[in-house]
Protein backbone atom coordinates (compact mmCIF):
# COMPACT_ATOMS: atom_id res chain seq x y z
CA UNK A 1 0.00 0.00 0.00
CA UNK A 2 1.40 3.38 -0.96
CA UNK A 3 2.14 6.06 1.61
CA UNK A 4 -0.69 8.17 0.22
CA UNK A 5 -3.16 5.33 0.52
CA UNK A 6 -2.07 4.78 4.09
CA UNK A 7 -2.46 8.45 4.89
CA UNK A 8 -5.91 8.47 3.35
CA UNK A 9 -6.90 5.52 5.50
CA UNK A 10 -5.64 7.34 8.59
CA UNK A 11 -7.45 10.52 7.59
CA UNK A 12 -10.72 8.61 7.38
CA UNK A 13 -10.38 7.54 11.02
CA UNK A 14 -10.00 11.05 12.45
CA UNK A 15 -13.68 11.54 13.34
CA UNK A 16 -13.73 8.32 15.34
CA UNK A 17 -10.43 9.11 17.02
CA UNK A 18 -11.82 12.48 17.99
CA UNK A 19 -14.94 10.90 19.45
CA UNK A 20 -12.93 8.46 21.53
CA UNK A 21 -10.56 11.22 22.71
CA UNK A 22 -13.44 13.51 23.57
CA UNK A 23 -15.10 10.84 25.63
CA UNK A 24 -11.83 10.04 27.38
CA UNK A 25 -10.83 13.61 28.19
CA UNK A 26 -14.06 15.61 28.04
CA UNK A 27 -12.34 18.85 27.05
CA UNK A 28 -12.47 19.38 23.28
CA UNK A 29 -9.07 21.02 22.93
CA UNK A 30 -7.25 18.55 25.09
CA UNK A 31 -8.96 15.79 23.13
CA UNK A 32 -7.80 17.22 19.83
CA UNK A 33 -4.29 17.59 21.25
CA UNK A 34 -4.36 13.88 21.95
CA UNK A 35 -5.58 13.12 18.44
CA UNK A 36 -2.88 15.35 16.98
CA UNK A 37 -0.19 13.59 19.01
CA UNK A 38 -1.61 10.30 17.81
CA UNK A 39 -1.58 11.33 14.15
CA UNK A 40 1.97 12.63 14.38
CA UNK A 41 3.13 9.44 15.97
CA UNK A 42 1.23 7.40 13.39
CA UNK A 43 2.84 9.37 10.59
CA UNK A 44 6.31 8.65 11.95
CA UNK A 45 5.47 4.97 12.17
CA UNK A 46 3.52 4.53 8.99
CA UNK A 47 5.88 1.70 8.06
CA UNK A 48 4.97 -0.23 11.20
CA UNK A 49 1.42 -0.54 10.08
CA UNK A 50 1.08 -4.08 8.83
CA UNK A 51 -0.59 -4.74 5.54
CA UNK A 52 -4.08 -6.04 6.26
CA UNK A 53 -4.20 -4.70 9.79
CA UNK A 54 -7.22 -2.53 10.50
CA UNK A 55 -6.13 1.11 10.51
CA UNK A 56 -8.72 1.77 13.16
CA UNK A 57 -7.29 -0.70 15.63
CA UNK A 58 -3.76 0.40 14.91
CA UNK A 59 -4.58 4.08 15.49
CA UNK A 60 -6.71 3.45 18.56
CA UNK A 61 -3.85 1.47 20.07
CA UNK A 62 -1.44 4.36 19.48
CA UNK A 63 -3.86 6.86 20.92
CA UNK A 64 -4.68 4.73 23.89
CA UNK A 65 -1.00 4.43 24.76
CA UNK A 66 -0.65 8.20 24.58
CA UNK A 67 -3.70 8.54 26.82
CA UNK A 68 -2.19 6.18 29.38
CA UNK A 69 1.06 8.20 29.35
CA UNK A 70 -0.92 11.33 29.92
CA UNK A 71 -2.83 9.84 32.84
CA UNK A 72 0.45 8.73 34.35
CA UNK A 73 1.92 12.22 34.07
CA UNK A 74 -1.19 13.65 35.62
CA UNK A 75 -0.90 11.15 38.44
CA UNK A 76 2.50 12.56 39.27
CA UNK A 77 1.05 16.03 39.58
CA UNK A 78 -1.20 15.68 42.57
CA UNK A 79 -2.46 19.23 42.56
CA UNK A 80 -5.61 18.35 40.77
CA UNK A 81 -6.98 18.40 37.30
CA UNK A 82 -8.30 21.39 35.47
CA UNK A 83 -11.94 21.10 34.66
CA UNK A 84 -13.91 23.16 32.21
CA UNK A 85 -16.47 25.44 33.73
CA UNK A 86 -19.63 23.86 32.46
CA UNK A 87 -21.84 26.34 34.10
CA UNK A 88 -20.15 29.23 32.37
CA UNK A 89 -20.75 27.40 29.12
CA UNK A 90 -24.35 26.86 30.02
CA UNK A 91 -24.87 30.47 30.95
CA UNK A 92 -23.22 31.59 27.75
CA UNK A 93 -25.55 29.54 25.59
CA UNK A 94 -28.92 29.29 27.31
CA UNK A 95 -30.67 28.19 24.13
CA UNK A 96 -28.53 25.11 23.83
CA UNK A 97 -28.59 24.40 27.50
CA UNK A 98 -31.55 22.07 27.66
CA UNK A 99 -30.51 20.18 24.58
CA UNK A 100 -26.97 19.70 25.83
CA UNK A 101 -27.85 18.98 29.42
CA UNK A 102 -28.27 15.26 28.88
CA UNK A 103 -25.02 14.94 26.97
CA UNK A 104 -23.16 17.02 29.52
CA UNK A 105 -24.37 14.81 32.32
CA UNK A 106 -23.13 11.71 30.53
CA UNK A 107 -19.75 13.24 29.66
CA UNK A 108 -19.26 14.45 33.22
CA UNK A 109 -20.17 11.04 34.56
CA UNK A 110 -17.57 9.44 32.30
CA UNK A 111 -14.88 11.64 33.82
CA UNK A 112 -15.70 10.28 37.24
CA UNK A 113 -14.99 6.72 36.11
CA UNK A 114 -11.40 5.52 36.46
CA UNK A 115 -9.39 5.94 33.22
CA UNK A 116 -8.95 2.17 32.79
CA UNK A 117 -12.65 1.42 33.07
CA UNK A 118 -13.57 4.47 31.03
CA UNK A 119 -11.32 3.43 28.16
CA UNK A 120 -12.56 -0.16 28.22
CA UNK A 121 -16.21 0.81 28.32
CA UNK A 122 -15.85 3.34 25.51
CA UNK A 123 -13.86 1.01 23.28
CA UNK A 124 -16.55 -1.66 23.52
CA UNK A 125 -19.82 0.18 24.03
CA UNK A 126 -19.22 3.21 21.83
CA UNK A 127 -16.51 2.27 19.38
CA UNK A 128 -17.88 -1.23 18.93
CA UNK A 129 -14.65 -3.20 19.32
CA UNK A 130 -14.98 -6.83 20.29
CA UNK A 131 -13.62 -7.91 23.66
CA UNK A 132 -10.62 -9.48 21.93
CA UNK A 133 -9.90 -6.37 19.87
CA UNK A 134 -10.33 -4.02 22.81
CA UNK A 135 -8.15 -6.22 25.03
CA UNK A 136 -5.36 -6.16 22.43
CA UNK A 137 -5.73 -2.41 22.02
CA UNK A 138 -5.60 -1.74 25.73
CA UNK A 139 -2.88 -4.31 26.28
CA UNK A 140 -4.72 -6.35 28.91
CA UNK A 141 -6.00 -9.94 29.07
CA UNK A 142 -9.56 -10.46 27.82
CA UNK A 143 -10.78 -11.29 31.33
CA UNK A 144 -9.46 -8.01 32.67
CA UNK A 145 -11.02 -6.14 29.81
CA UNK A 146 -14.38 -7.78 30.48
CA UNK A 147 -14.35 -6.92 34.13
CA UNK A 148 -13.38 -3.33 33.35
CA UNK A 149 -16.28 -3.04 30.94
CA UNK A 150 -18.69 -4.49 33.49
CA UNK A 151 -17.46 -2.30 36.32
CA UNK A 152 -17.35 0.77 34.12
CA UNK A 153 -20.92 0.17 33.11
CA UNK A 154 -21.95 -0.20 36.72
CA UNK A 155 -20.09 3.00 37.65
CA UNK A 156 -21.82 4.85 34.84
CA UNK A 157 -25.23 3.66 35.99
CA UNK A 158 -24.59 4.84 39.56
CA UNK A 159 -23.18 8.18 38.40
CA UNK A 160 -26.12 8.84 36.13
CA UNK A 161 -28.47 8.01 38.99
CA UNK A 162 -26.63 10.54 41.16
CA UNK A 163 -26.75 13.17 38.45
CA UNK A 164 -30.45 12.56 38.04
CA UNK A 165 -31.03 12.99 41.75
CA UNK A 166 -29.02 16.21 41.82
CA UNK A 167 -31.07 17.53 38.95
CA UNK A 168 -34.24 16.75 40.87
CA UNK A 169 -32.92 18.62 43.88
CA UNK A 170 -32.07 21.64 41.76
CA UNK A 171 -35.52 21.67 40.27
CA UNK A 172 -37.09 21.55 43.71
CA UNK A 173 -34.85 24.38 44.97
CA UNK A 174 -35.73 26.80 42.20
Amino acid at each position, binding site marked *: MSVDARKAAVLAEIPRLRRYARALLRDGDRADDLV*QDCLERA*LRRLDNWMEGESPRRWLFTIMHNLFVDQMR*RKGRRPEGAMLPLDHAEALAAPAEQAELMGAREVLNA*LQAISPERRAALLAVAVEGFS*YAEAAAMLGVPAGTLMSRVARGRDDLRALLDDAGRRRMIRVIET
Partner: protein
Amino acid sequence: MSGRDFSERDIHMALDGELPEEDRTAYDAWLDANQDMKARAARYEADRQRLRASLEAVLAEPVPARLSRALEGGAAEPPRRAALRWIAAAAIFSVGGLGGYALGRRGDGPVSRDERLAQNAIIAHRIYSAEKLHVVEVGADQKDHLVGWLSRRVGLTLMAPDLSAQGYELIGGRLLPADGGTAAQFMYQSADGQRVSLYITSDKGEQDTGFRLYEGDPIRACYWVDEGYGCAVAGAAPAAKLLAAANLAYRQLLAGAEA
Protein backbone atom coordinates in the same frame (compact mmCIF):
# COMPACT_ATOMS: atom_id res chain seq x y z
CA MET B 1 -32.03 -25.72 26.83
CA SER B 2 -28.32 -25.30 27.09
CA GLY B 3 -27.77 -26.46 30.61
CA ARG B 4 -25.63 -23.55 31.72
CA ASP B 5 -26.33 -21.00 34.41
CA PHE B 6 -26.40 -17.34 33.56
CA SER B 7 -25.23 -14.41 35.58
CA GLU B 8 -24.84 -10.68 35.31
CA ARG B 9 -21.71 -11.30 33.30
CA ASP B 10 -23.89 -12.66 30.52
CA ILE B 11 -25.84 -9.43 30.44
CA HIS B 12 -22.66 -7.61 29.50
CA MET B 13 -21.73 -10.26 26.98
CA ALA B 14 -25.14 -10.18 25.38
CA LEU B 15 -25.06 -6.41 25.17
CA ASP B 16 -21.58 -6.44 23.66
CA GLY B 17 -22.36 -9.11 21.10
CA GLU B 18 -20.15 -11.65 22.83
CA LEU B 19 -22.82 -14.14 23.89
CA PRO B 20 -22.54 -17.33 21.83
CA GLU B 21 -25.47 -17.54 19.45
CA GLU B 22 -26.48 -20.97 20.74
CA ASP B 23 -26.95 -19.56 24.23
CA ARG B 24 -29.27 -16.81 23.12
CA THR B 25 -32.60 -18.62 23.57
CA ALA B 26 -31.70 -19.89 27.02
CA TYR B 27 -30.41 -16.43 27.97
CA ASP B 28 -33.66 -14.78 26.91
CA ALA B 29 -35.61 -17.33 28.92
CA TRP B 30 -33.38 -16.64 31.93
CA LEU B 31 -34.08 -12.92 31.61
CA ASP B 32 -37.81 -13.58 31.46
CA ALA B 33 -37.57 -15.62 34.61
CA ASN B 34 -35.47 -12.99 36.42
CA GLN B 35 -37.18 -9.66 36.17
CA ASP B 36 -34.49 -7.82 38.10
CA MET B 37 -31.87 -9.06 35.66
CA LYS B 38 -34.12 -8.13 32.80
CA ALA B 39 -34.46 -4.62 34.20
CA ARG B 40 -30.70 -4.43 34.64
CA ALA B 41 -30.16 -5.44 31.02
CA ALA B 42 -32.65 -2.85 29.82
CA ARG B 43 -31.02 -0.17 31.94
CA TYR B 44 -27.54 -0.95 30.60
CA GLU B 45 -28.87 -0.80 27.10
CA ALA B 46 -30.55 2.55 27.75
CA ASP B 47 -27.32 3.92 29.27
CA ARG B 48 -25.40 2.78 26.24
CA GLN B 49 -27.89 4.55 24.05
CA ARG B 50 -27.40 7.75 26.04
CA LEU B 51 -23.65 7.36 25.89
CA ARG B 52 -23.65 6.95 22.14
CA ALA B 53 -26.11 9.78 21.60
CA SER B 54 -24.00 12.11 23.74
CA LEU B 55 -20.97 11.49 21.59
CA GLU B 56 -22.58 11.25 18.21
CA ALA B 57 -22.24 14.94 17.43
CA VAL B 58 -18.45 14.67 17.50
CA LEU B 59 -18.49 12.43 14.44
CA ALA B 60 -20.33 15.06 12.45
CA GLU B 61 -17.99 17.92 13.38
CA PRO B 62 -15.66 19.06 10.62
CA VAL B 63 -12.13 17.82 11.18
CA PRO B 64 -10.04 20.73 12.52
CA ALA B 65 -7.44 21.84 10.00
CA ARG B 66 -4.60 21.27 12.44
CA LEU B 67 -5.46 17.57 12.50
CA SER B 68 -5.62 17.06 8.76
CA ARG B 69 -2.43 19.11 8.46
CA ALA B 70 -0.73 16.90 11.03
CA LEU B 71 -0.81 14.14 8.46
CA GLU B 72 0.92 16.18 5.81
CA GLY B 73 4.09 15.81 7.83
CA GLY B 74 7.11 18.04 7.52
CA ALA B 75 6.47 21.30 9.30
CA ALA B 76 4.08 19.93 11.84
CA GLU B 77 2.74 22.72 13.98
CA PRO B 78 2.91 22.22 17.70
CA PRO B 79 -0.36 21.04 19.19
CA ARG B 80 -2.40 23.92 20.44
CA ARG B 81 -2.14 22.52 23.94
CA ALA B 82 -5.68 23.19 24.84
CA ALA B 83 -5.49 26.94 24.68
CA LEU B 84 -9.11 26.98 25.68
CA ARG B 85 -8.64 24.28 28.24
CA TRP B 86 -10.61 26.21 30.75
CA ILE B 87 -13.65 27.72 29.25
CA ALA B 88 -13.36 31.39 29.97
CA ALA B 89 -16.52 32.84 31.28
CA ALA B 90 -16.01 36.11 29.44
CA ALA B 91 -19.17 35.66 27.44
CA ILE B 92 -21.39 35.82 30.50
CA PHE B 93 -20.39 39.40 31.23
CA SER B 94 -22.11 42.20 29.49
CA VAL B 95 -19.38 44.44 30.86
CA GLY B 96 -16.26 43.82 28.82
CA GLY B 97 -12.86 43.43 30.30
CA LEU B 98 -12.53 39.72 30.69
CA GLY B 99 -11.03 39.31 27.29
CA GLY B 100 -8.71 36.74 25.93
CA TYR B 101 -7.68 33.36 27.02
CA ALA B 102 -4.21 32.78 28.29
CA LEU B 103 -2.32 30.19 26.35
CA GLY B 104 -2.44 26.73 27.75
CA ARG B 105 0.62 24.76 28.62
CA ARG B 106 1.68 21.18 28.46
CA GLY B 107 0.44 19.27 31.47
CA ASP B 108 3.98 18.63 32.65
CA GLY B 109 5.27 22.18 32.29
CA PRO B 110 6.04 24.51 35.16
CA VAL B 111 3.16 25.92 37.12
CA SER B 112 2.10 29.18 35.55
CA ARG B 113 1.79 32.46 37.31
CA ASP B 114 -1.98 32.40 37.46
CA GLU B 115 -2.08 28.80 38.62
CA ARG B 116 0.18 29.82 41.46
CA LEU B 117 -2.38 32.47 42.29
CA ALA B 118 -5.00 29.73 42.59
CA GLN B 119 -2.69 27.55 44.66
CA ASN B 120 -1.82 30.39 47.04
CA ALA B 121 -5.49 31.21 47.47
CA ILE B 122 -6.27 27.58 48.21
CA ILE B 123 -3.47 27.28 50.76
CA ALA B 124 -4.56 30.47 52.49
CA HIS B 125 -8.14 29.32 52.51
CA ARG B 126 -7.22 25.94 53.92
CA ILE B 127 -5.21 27.51 56.74
CA TYR B 128 -7.54 30.27 57.84
CA SER B 129 -10.98 28.86 57.11
CA ALA B 130 -10.20 26.10 59.61
CA GLU B 131 -9.60 28.64 62.39
CA LYS B 132 -12.22 28.90 65.07
CA LEU B 133 -11.07 31.98 66.97
CA HIS B 134 -8.71 33.78 64.62
CA VAL B 135 -10.24 33.27 61.24
CA VAL B 136 -9.80 36.97 60.40
CA GLU B 137 -7.49 39.73 61.59
CA VAL B 138 -10.07 42.48 61.21
CA GLY B 139 -13.75 41.69 61.51
CA ALA B 140 -16.59 42.78 59.26
CA ASP B 141 -17.71 45.18 62.01
CA GLN B 142 -14.71 47.33 61.00
CA LYS B 143 -15.25 46.91 57.29
CA ASP B 144 -14.17 50.39 56.23
CA HIS B 145 -10.96 50.13 58.18
CA LEU B 146 -10.34 46.64 56.79
CA VAL B 147 -10.85 47.69 53.18
CA GLY B 148 -8.75 50.84 53.51
CA TRP B 149 -5.92 49.01 55.22
CA LEU B 150 -5.83 46.13 52.72
CA SER B 151 -6.10 48.49 49.74
CA ARG B 152 -3.07 50.40 51.00
CA ARG B 153 -1.01 47.31 51.73
CA VAL B 154 -1.88 45.43 48.54
CA GLY B 155 -1.63 48.54 46.38
CA LEU B 156 -5.01 48.19 44.70
CA THR B 157 -8.33 49.90 45.14
CA LEU B 158 -10.21 47.17 46.93
CA MET B 159 -13.68 46.66 48.23
CA ALA B 160 -15.22 43.76 50.09
CA PRO B 161 -17.77 42.44 47.60
CA ASP B 162 -21.25 41.61 48.81
CA LEU B 163 -21.74 37.88 48.20
CA SER B 164 -25.04 37.61 50.03
CA ALA B 165 -26.81 36.76 46.77
CA GLN B 166 -24.96 33.43 47.05
CA GLY B 167 -25.69 33.15 50.76
CA TYR B 168 -22.27 34.28 52.00
CA GLU B 169 -21.80 37.04 54.55
CA LEU B 170 -18.50 38.81 55.08
CA ILE B 171 -16.86 37.93 58.38
CA GLY B 172 -13.67 39.93 57.87
CA GLY B 173 -10.27 39.73 56.27
CA ARG B 174 -6.55 39.62 56.66
CA LEU B 175 -3.28 40.55 55.01
CA LEU B 176 -1.21 37.71 53.59
CA PRO B 177 2.25 37.36 52.14
CA ALA B 178 2.12 36.51 48.43
CA ASP B 179 4.88 35.69 45.95
CA GLY B 180 7.15 38.67 46.48
CA GLY B 181 4.33 40.87 47.70
CA THR B 182 1.10 41.00 49.63
CA ALA B 183 -2.39 39.69 49.17
CA ALA B 184 -5.74 40.41 50.77
CA GLN B 185 -8.09 37.71 51.92
CA PHE B 186 -11.75 38.41 52.55
CA MET B 187 -13.48 35.58 54.40
CA TYR B 188 -17.17 34.81 54.00
CA GLN B 189 -19.44 32.36 55.71
CA SER B 190 -22.84 30.93 54.89
CA ALA B 191 -25.63 30.40 57.41
CA ASP B 192 -24.65 26.76 57.74
CA GLY B 193 -21.02 27.62 58.46
CA GLN B 194 -19.49 26.94 55.03
CA ARG B 195 -16.65 29.33 54.26
CA VAL B 196 -15.37 30.77 51.02
CA SER B 197 -12.60 33.32 50.72
CA LEU B 198 -11.75 35.91 48.13
CA TYR B 199 -8.03 36.28 47.57
CA ILE B 200 -6.76 39.38 45.80
CA THR B 201 -3.24 40.26 44.84
CA SER B 202 -1.71 42.72 42.46
CA ASP B 203 -0.89 40.99 39.18
CA LYS B 204 0.87 43.12 36.63
CA GLY B 205 1.25 40.27 34.15
CA GLU B 206 0.46 41.32 30.63
CA GLN B 207 -2.32 38.85 30.12
CA ASP B 208 -5.85 38.96 31.42
CA THR B 209 -7.54 35.61 31.77
CA GLY B 210 -11.09 34.44 31.78
CA PHE B 211 -12.49 32.58 34.74
CA ARG B 212 -10.72 29.35 35.38
CA LEU B 213 -11.31 26.56 37.79
CA TYR B 214 -8.51 25.01 39.74
CA GLU B 215 -9.58 21.70 41.21
CA GLY B 216 -7.77 21.03 44.43
CA ASP B 217 -8.90 18.40 46.83
CA PRO B 218 -11.10 19.27 48.66
CA ILE B 219 -10.66 23.01 48.13
CA ARG B 220 -11.13 24.40 44.64
CA ALA B 221 -10.67 27.90 43.38
CA CYS B 222 -12.25 29.93 40.65
CA TYR B 223 -9.62 32.47 39.61
CA TRP B 224 -8.99 35.21 37.11
CA VAL B 225 -6.59 37.99 36.30
CA ASP B 226 -8.01 41.26 35.06
CA GLU B 227 -6.75 44.84 34.97
CA GLY B 228 -3.89 44.10 37.30
CA TYR B 229 -6.10 42.31 39.82
CA GLY B 230 -5.26 38.68 40.37
CA CYS B 231 -8.26 37.18 42.16
CA ALA B 232 -9.44 33.80 43.35
CA VAL B 233 -12.53 32.62 45.15
CA ALA B 234 -11.60 29.50 47.10
CA GLY B 235 -13.68 27.06 49.05
CA ALA B 236 -15.02 23.55 49.21
CA ALA B 237 -18.32 24.63 47.64
CA PRO B 238 -19.39 23.10 44.30
CA ALA B 239 -17.73 24.66 41.28
CA ALA B 240 -20.97 26.26 40.12
CA LYS B 241 -21.42 28.04 43.41
CA LEU B 242 -17.84 29.26 43.45
CA LEU B 243 -18.26 30.52 39.92
CA ALA B 244 -21.42 32.38 40.88
CA ALA B 245 -19.64 33.94 43.86
CA ALA B 246 -16.65 34.82 41.67
CA ASN B 247 -19.00 36.41 39.18
CA LEU B 248 -20.46 38.61 41.93
CA ALA B 249 -17.01 39.51 43.24
CA TYR B 250 -15.65 40.28 39.80
CA ARG B 251 -18.38 42.74 38.91
CA GLN B 252 -18.18 44.56 42.21
CA LEU B 253 -14.40 44.76 42.20
CA LEU B 254 -14.48 46.13 38.67
CA ALA B 255 -17.11 48.70 39.59
CA GLY B 256 -15.15 49.57 42.74
CA ALA B 257 -11.92 50.05 40.82
CA GLU B 258 -13.59 52.35 38.32
CA ALA B 259 -15.45 54.37 40.92
